[in-house]
């Protein structure tokens, strides 16, 4: 499959982070086109036609989300860009904002116009302070060139764009916690309904979108929604940024056209070029730490024996029993020397640390799982603990205010589902498990 790039095509041009070079290479065309020749509803219509799905992890159709935005008279509307990228394994937005900040600024202007917002925000993770400076410089250049501020390009449309840093909490990537944080409060997720599309920032209708989703609006407006929908495969339209990490020969951020096979992505010369140091692949987390882990025999093939593709549908094939999710595109590969128990503990530790502590199942459950996994990993667990973990999982999943509870439960549940032998080995061979790793699991002949 030919690999088309829609977002990162110009990323290697020297000086692309400056307005002049970006503009020379076709930048800000979408703003001109939208503001001068389209109505806001036409822009929304193009985004709907494009089939673009939210790139933050949930994969909800962006155009549909936009069309839910309430439009009461006399009430301001807001667009907020979620740049609080903190999922372990995901670093695509950071790359995009660092290398080609004007793409996000351009996307923000076009999207704000489509939604009728006159003030928009980029909520950026506190640890990305250096990117905040990059974005502010880009925004200042856009103001100076008349693409932001009052009466943009003489069309009468006003827009102010503000970058607001968070304090570095993972939970502030949840859209309602993000809004609370943006309002200056403690970043606790809100009860839903009402959804932000009705009551969001300062009680006004708000759309919250991921950096990559907003950037994708630029090629959609430039080339039309239909053209965008022709890239990709089926309902997974367009391109996706994948941040590949772990034991790969060539980790990094790749823009892929959706529909390439997972095998090509891991072993292909254009992509990761296989597993580092000549090792074998043991497992893979295809979409950031919160999606279920896949054992090596389910990474490149689905349970039915078909090729697994880099699409929302194919990665989710088989449900949670034998599939996973595309999520936010944080692709983590593990070689045969990695310990799944240790990795699961590491993820659980992250979620226990990042739980906001508002609702009981997540506050208590994540901490409990972390402690049990800590014991298992350090050779102090027993077989009862494995069942206990499954039970805790079931009691957290679906019972929490926001999806952090699910995100904490899924990786643990999946690790036990596929690597139960390795967990049991940590209990039965306590001393050995402290000195070496379990190695590759064998493919079960009959799937449970």
């Amino acid at each position, binding site marked *: 499959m030919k690999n088309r790039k829609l977002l990162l095509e110009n990323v290697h041009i020297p000086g692309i982070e400056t307005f002049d070079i970006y503009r020379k290479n076709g930048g800000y065309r979408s703003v001109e086109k939208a503001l001068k020749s389209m109505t806001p509803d036409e822009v929304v219509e193009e985004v709907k036609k494009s089939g673009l799905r939210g790139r933050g992890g949930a994969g909800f159709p962006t155009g549909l989300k936009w069309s839910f935005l309430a439009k009461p008279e006399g009430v301001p509307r807001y667009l907020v860009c979620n740049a609080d990228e903190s999922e372990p394994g995901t670093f695509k937005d950071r790359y995009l904002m660092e290398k080609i900040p004007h793409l996000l600024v351009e996307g923000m202007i076009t999207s704000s116009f489509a939604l009728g917002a006159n003030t928009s925000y980029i909520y950026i993770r506190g640890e990305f302070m250096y990117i905040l400076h990059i974005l502010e410089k880009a925004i200042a250049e856009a103001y100076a060139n008349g693409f932001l501020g009052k009466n943009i390009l003489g069309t009468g449309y006003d827009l102010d764009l503000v970058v607001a840093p968070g304090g570095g*909490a993972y*939970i502030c990537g949840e859209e309602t916690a993000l809004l609370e944080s943006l309002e200056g409060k*403690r970043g606790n997720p809100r*009860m839903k309904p009402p959804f932000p599309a009705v009551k969001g920032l300062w009680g006004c209708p708000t759309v919250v979108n991921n950096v990559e989703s907003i950037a994708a609006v630029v090629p959609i407006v430039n080339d039309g929604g239909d053209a965008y929908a022709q890239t990709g495969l089926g309902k997974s339209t367009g391109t996706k940024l994948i941040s590949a990490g772990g034991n790969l020969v060539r980790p990094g951020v790749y823009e892929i056209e959706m529909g390439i096979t997972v095998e090509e992505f891991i072993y292909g010369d254009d992509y990761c070029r296989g597993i580092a140091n000549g090792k074998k692949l043991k497992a893979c987390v295809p979409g950031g730490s919160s999606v279920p882990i896949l054992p090596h025999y389910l990474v490149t093939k689905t349970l039915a024996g078909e090729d697994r593709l880099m699409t929302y549908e194919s990665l989710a094939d088989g449900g949670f029993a034998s599939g996973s999710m595309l999520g936010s595109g944080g692709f983590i590969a593990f070689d045969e020397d990695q310990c799944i128990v240790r990795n699961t503990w590491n993820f659980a530790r992250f979620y*226990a*640390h*990042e*739980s*906001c*502590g*508002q*609702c*009981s*199942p997540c*506050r*208590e*459950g*994540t*901490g*409990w799982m972390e*402690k*049990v996994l800590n*014991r298992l990993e350090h050779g102090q667990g027993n077989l009862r603990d494995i069942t*206990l973990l499954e*039970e805790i999982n*079931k*009691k957290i999943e*679906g*019972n*929490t*205010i926001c999806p952090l509870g699910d995100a904490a439960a899924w990786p643990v549940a999946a690790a036990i589902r596929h690597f139960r032998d390795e967990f049991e080995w940590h209990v039965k061979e306590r001393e050995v498990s402290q000195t070496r790793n379990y190695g590759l699991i064998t493919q079960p002949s009959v799937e449970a």
Partner: protein
Amino acid sequence: MIKVTIDDIEIEVEPGTSILNAARQAGGEIVPPAMCYYSKLPGTGGKCRTCLVEVAAGSTADPRPMPKLVASCSTNVMDGMIVKNKTSERVHENRGGVVEFLLINHPLDCPVCDQAGECHLQDLGYEHGSAETRYEEERRTFEPIDIGDTIKLHMNRCILCYRCVEVAKQLTDKRVHGVLSRGEHSEISTYIENAVESDFSGNMIDVCPVGALTDRTFRFKSRVWFLKPMEAERNCDKCAGKSVVWMFGKEIYRVTGRKDQYGEIETIDNKTAWICNECRFEKKDASDWNIIGPRSINRHSVISQGKYKTNMTRRIKKLD
């Protein structure tokens, strides 16, 4: 008016009513327990997850069941909604899970806790908890601290319901009290342990469902079931002065607000009858109050499972 069915009982309620409040209008066994929701404090609810219920049909217009259990305190009823609480196995199982979570870090020091006998967590544990714990790890602990002269905070016992935070926000004028840290390490605190000084701060004690916030003027004086609650009133320029005084003989041991069967302060003359700190902490002499008569305690508490209620009534009658 719209119709909703909860555990096979049909109820007619105003649109915009939550499932929990609809159930409370019918009363009885179908009412889900609530540890964090407090109808008198807007903004509470949704946090403890003990009031989770199953929605078997969303509404007449869209009769699909809701895939997840929903928090009944923060989900509004729809016309034709069918809700399962007592009758749902899933609810029973998951509520047990929530109670287990609430108890893993709770010290279970009921024998030395002032809240024992009127503790909602005790009731909840009795109804939905299991006799043994599966929690083998060390419990999270904090040192008890004094918030001001009159309130003691035992963070170990706290279930982070945020009710006291809402009291601080809504009833007192200068909020110095809130939640620090996050996750398991979250704690209720006043900003750098500032004393909570406000005429209505004592209501934090009344809204606390557990023994995390207790009355320093009453601590360790007596167990609540040895005291007889009497309705009393006095002229107060700060509050309505309508309270319950808890007596032993002719002596007043403590003063609280008048709580209804759900542990919430009653509405009297269309106003929530919060009491001020002067009434609560300083008026401990029988001559300060006009004592009206015995207060019936309508609670399904652990203590009342046995003889609490009957003994209490008998003793009150004897006094008359």
